[in-house]
């Protein structure tokens, strides 16, 4: 058994959870959110949508299969969803000091130390999750025994999209493929992989890039962290693009930005959807899908203009899971068809988009 330092999570309401540190030993703070997925910590940790958040995994065992090696490039990682970890910290009940997997290049603890991210174990994550469920997501900070106490940090007060978006334009896929402008609001790399795999030329642009001067066959708006209200520029650009009538598609943040461009509004959910098991139903059909999700904000269906309609609905709480234009090729999903991590049942979503080009 490893000798580890005591560490404590303190929530903004004063609730304390005592545990031990297994990652980088430094104070941290952020918004505390829980994810009920049972696999996929390397993907989650590198998912830019977790920027500024402290991730609580409800599955009690963490680190079992270690961490795959770095591979690919900073623009397109082989095994991860971005070039680095975005979570401020990760918290679990139990940490596996010894991992086992043929692909693992190092342990989770090693990786966290490399990336200077704290990790806590020995915390009653179920009690913590219930507290977050009942009281809503809240801010929290991690105090490592013997180290100074950090200030609370509210990521939602910041433009996280700007923080996580690329700064330059990158292109992927065959040069002769249909041209898709991919707006990076804090993109997960698997969206790039899913598009490139389908033979399109992906032009990845920063969140505030005015892509309307580019020549493209379709527009794709990525996922991203935080509050969609910060992406006013992007919304404006999408609105302009809508006048062209070219196919527009969005995922997660992309769904919210498309909704905003259409004239609808968004709101913050009490504790969000972060899991691999969210059921959604395609409006007006008997088709249902298990989806991977990670979002704290949602589109308010009731504010959709008359020429728009819900495309998918969450079967648990009835919230919006996607929208579409009634006549034009504009549609989006609140869930993650690119999965990674999570179930891959909705990858057809990319086919539907590419087929429209």
């Amino acid at each position: 058994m490893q000798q580890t330092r005591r560490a404590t999570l303190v929530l903004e309401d004063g609730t304390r959870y005592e545990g031990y540190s297994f990652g980088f030993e430094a104070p941290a703070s952020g918004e505390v959110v829980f994810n009920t997925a049972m696999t996929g910590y390397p993907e989650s940790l590198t998912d830019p949508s977790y920027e500024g958040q402290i991730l609580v995994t409800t599955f009690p065992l963490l680190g079992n299969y270690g961490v795959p090696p770095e591979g690919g490039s900073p623009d397109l990682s082989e095994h991860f969803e971005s070039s680095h970890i975005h979570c401020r910290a990760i918290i679990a009940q139990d940490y596996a000091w010894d991992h086992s997997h043929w692909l693992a290049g190092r342990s989770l603890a090693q990786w966290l130390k490399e990336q200077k991210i704290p990790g806590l174990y020995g915390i009653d994550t179920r009690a913590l999750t219930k507290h977050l469920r009942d009281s809503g997501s809240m801010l929290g900070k991690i105090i490592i025994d013997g180290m100074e106490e950090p200030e609370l940090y509210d990521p939602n007060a910041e433009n996280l999209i700007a923080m996580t978006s690329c700064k330059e334009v990158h292109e992927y896929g065959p040069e002769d493929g249909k041209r898709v402008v991919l707006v990076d609001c804090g993109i997960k790399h698997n969206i790039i992989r899913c598009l490139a795999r389908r033979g399109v030329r992906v032009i990845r642009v920063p969140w505030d890039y005015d892509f309307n001067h580019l020549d493209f066959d379709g527009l794709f708006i990525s996922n991203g962290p935080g509050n969609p209200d910060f992406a006013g520029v992007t919304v404006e650009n999408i609105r302009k693009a809508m006048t062209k009538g070219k196919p527009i598609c969005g995922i997660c943040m992309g769904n919210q930005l498309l909704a905003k461009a259409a004239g609808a509004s968004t709101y913050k959910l009490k504790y969000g959807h972060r899991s691999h098991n969210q059921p959604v139903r395609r409006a007006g059909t008997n088709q249902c899908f298990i989806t991977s999700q990670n979002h704290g904000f949602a589109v308010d269906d009731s504010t959709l203009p008359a020429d728009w309609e819900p495309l998918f609905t969450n079967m648990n709480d009835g919230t919006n899971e996607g929208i579409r234009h009634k006549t034009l090729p504009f549609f989006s999903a609140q869930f993650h068809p690119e999965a990674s991590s999570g179930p891959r049942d909705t990858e057809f979503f990319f086919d539907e988009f590419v087929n429209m080009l």
Partner: protein
Amino acid sequence: MNKDASIKKVLLLGSGALKIGEAGEFDYSGAQALKAMKEEGITTVLINPNIATVQTSEGFADKIYFLPVTPDFVTRVIDRERPDGILLAFGGQTALNCGVELYRSGVLERYGVKVLGTPVRAIIDTEDRELFVEKLDQIDIKTIRSSAASDIESALAIADDLGYPVIVRAAYALGGLGSGFCDNAEELAALVEKALAFSPQVLIEKSLKGWKEVEYEVVRDRFDNCITVCNMENFDPLGIHTGESIVVAPSQTLSNDDYHYLRSLAIKIIRHIGIVGECNVQYAYDPSSMDYRVIEVNARLSRSSALASKATGYPLAFVAAKLGLGYGLFDLKNSVTQSTSAFFEPALDYVVCKLPRWDLGKFHGVDRQIGSSMKSVGEVMAIGRTFEEAFQKGLRMIGQGMHGFVGNKDVKIDDIRGALAAPTDKRVFVLSAAMRSGMSVDEIHELTKIDRWFLYKLRNIINTAAELETYDSLEAVDPELLRRAKQQGFSDFQVARSVLKDKMTDTETANLLVRARRKELGIMPVVKQIDTLAAEYPAMTNYLYLTYNGTENDVDYLHDHRSVIVLGSGAYRIGSSVEFDWCSVNALMTVKKEGWRSVMINYNPETVSTDYDACDRLYFDELTFERVMDIIELEQPHGVILSVGGQIPNNLATRLDAQHVNILGTSAASIDNAEDRHKFSAMLDRLGIDQPRWRELTSLDDIHQFVAEVGYPVLVRPSYVLSGAAMNVCSNNEELVRFLQLAANVSKQHPVVVTEFIQDAKEIEMDAVADHGEIMAYAISEHIEYAGVHSGDATIQFPPQKLYVETMRRIKKVSAKIAKALNISGPFNIQYLAKENDIKVIECNLRASRSFPFVSKVLKINFIDLATRIMLGQKVEKPAKSAFDLDYVGIKASQFSFSRLQGADPVLGVDMSSTGEVGCLGEMTSEAVLKSLLSVGQRIPQKGVLLSSGSVKHKLAMLDAAKMLDARGYRIYATEGTRRFLEENGVRATLVYKPSDTDMHPQALEVLHNHDVDLVVNIPRDLSSDEITNGYKIRRAAIDLNIPLLTNARLASAFIGAFTTLSPDSIEIKAWDEY
């Protein structure tokens, strides 16, 4: 809503008697399906001869037929009941096979019976290996490369082509029956011959030993919506049957890519096959790449699906039944949250560990190695928030003397490396010993192929134990270390043994000391809920477990003293299975009905009592003193019922009483007076009640002296057994000495109980319920076999058919005396021997017995309901009805699973060996005998019968039966002595030579191999078994060649008498409520 409105009446096929590979899980899935139908207002008809099940109880199905689940009987029920639909997926392989036959023979079409759920075509596609591979080839899914053979020659040719080692699988057989690994042609030829006796076809495939084994439980509705409810990973690598493996849920060593790769394949497969309902997909998965093979798909509810239901809280069988009616998953609600959709995949926030329970020690000659064929008789499921916690809990739940991964009695293992490479039922002990001997995880992994992840976790336990061992007083132990030990699932006992070592003389006191110290330090377990969504949504059910990995309880305890805790039965094992689940469930129903909060503690995933809607609160946790006390302290109940779950809860009586727990019903002191051999014997002497002479002895000389007094044979019960069965009958000096020298220890520490063995005595059971010492209801039943066959193996008739009225009267009187003397309140059972009119008491249990559901259902008085009301302090009336009023008889017959226990001698003795039972009703004894024996796999012979009947007494006992066979035109084959005897008595018989006369023909084994006979009656000469005898070879060959075998003269006579006088067509088809 998408329900098929044309379905008004449904027939459900059960799985029959519990057997290895097909056990209590199908009571659970059938009961769930019936509940789903009932909720829809659909009339249900159930065929299941297993009378001890919950599903065959009042209130579950509208019509219940205690009949064999065979095409003939089912056709006759269909003809009578005219159901609109049939459910085939809820009764295991038995129901599925029967359904396929009914489909093929056109019965279902003829009667317009619609198969609900997965179409039969899809079932056939998954069951026939060649079709299956073809089907999956169509969608480029990799299967294990295999080829079918229907004779030995082609099997050998295939294996030559593939290269050894190969694995052999029999088609249409569950639990890996007739399956195994072969390293060479010789082994292959032997196995294939055996397998072909069960199945027309075997499959030879390349062995993938050492790969991971992973399973997905998949659900699909008719709208093509799919979910995977759970995945599971085997601790043991491929090569060990999943029923023999330790299994964890969810998978632990799969990355997200691995997990979802296999998940997507599973969904692709079930869409292509066209499942509607539930199925499981089993994979072999390469530990060093993403290569996989599909092992098999089961198009029905299975042991794994029952486990998955319990592991996740997702009621698979219930949902599958609804989908069969046409619903979409989106029409149904998650029954735990009651607000979210049933179309979702459970998120677990705990880890589940399933461990198998073997009873190989009960069998003579059985091969103890575990492999591709299933031998375990039960399983447990442990829940924790670390793997170590779940694993150690599970080892205790198995109930075979393990305290966890450390702290057990030292088992001497001569060759650890050899034992690691060739695992047996003791492999966990071997792993522990290997680690303690200093072997590295890598070394152990090389030998076992168990994933290093599991081994690392086990090493954590070893390390913690080593740290504890550095202390020698409890007070000195670092509180953090103590907490960590508890978080890794250490029991108080393990802590005490690690710290106190040799100083621990009194286990009980030591346990209590650790408990007190823990409480002082505030190290207490917390209660967590299984809610299917990892706390994302609130749960409306109380499906609970305890863990030390947490700081907060999920339950707000009111401490209103309105809880009544019922202790369940634990793992199914030989001697304790579904009957105690029936008792537990009925006690819970009464507790609830009477206005109390019903609370269950049990950990067996194959049961109905662990269904979270069977009670108000379910603690899926250990039945150890430590854990039961934890729960009692949390619940602060009105009282605890420990007399309905068999021996495990009963054994807690004294210790709970010492902690001032309110034990409902008979007092702990009385229980102790009945359990303690000396106290009970002295009481009987005081009351002037006769018993067989016995003595507890500590030396061989004393034993000889006692035997000189009572004479042979004697029953010998050692308190410490080295190998083999725990009990033996010895007929002469030689046997006695050999047994005591080879099998048992005799010493002051390990005394041996020797009892006179009364031959040719009847054995009689008294099942009863008393209130403050007064018997309120009773049932006397009679064994068909003479004493010497364990009561759990015997064939029992109720009401008794051939008992003197005088004997009955005496039994009643003596029972009343005992009930009064022990002031019994609640259920009890007394076993008697009767010869002429003399009766002797052989055993008394102050708890419900195995036969309670049988007598309750035959008499139609629910003994458990009555007993529970008494235990709750109600004044009850004596039921007006008695067994004398019955116009019919019930026969309870036993199911044996020898075919799965390679090498075991299929002979009945004083130790129980049956794995299940059935109970059938008839207006005549012969009719009930026939129904019940056909239900346990006997078949009416069409050709010939092989008789070989030990002693003269047995020959005489068989004479009438032999005459009847002869008169009916059966060809009788007999071994020398038997043939001579038959000829002398005017019965024609063909001589066959014994296996030892290898050069003489015809030889008994030849006759069997050629299938010239389709019934073997082989009566052992005496009750001791000698593995190398001719009798053993004949019996074993009969089992291996799937030829029905009877080894008891009285039972064989009853069966032969029944089928020679009654034709199966003349058997009346009547539902339970029509008797």
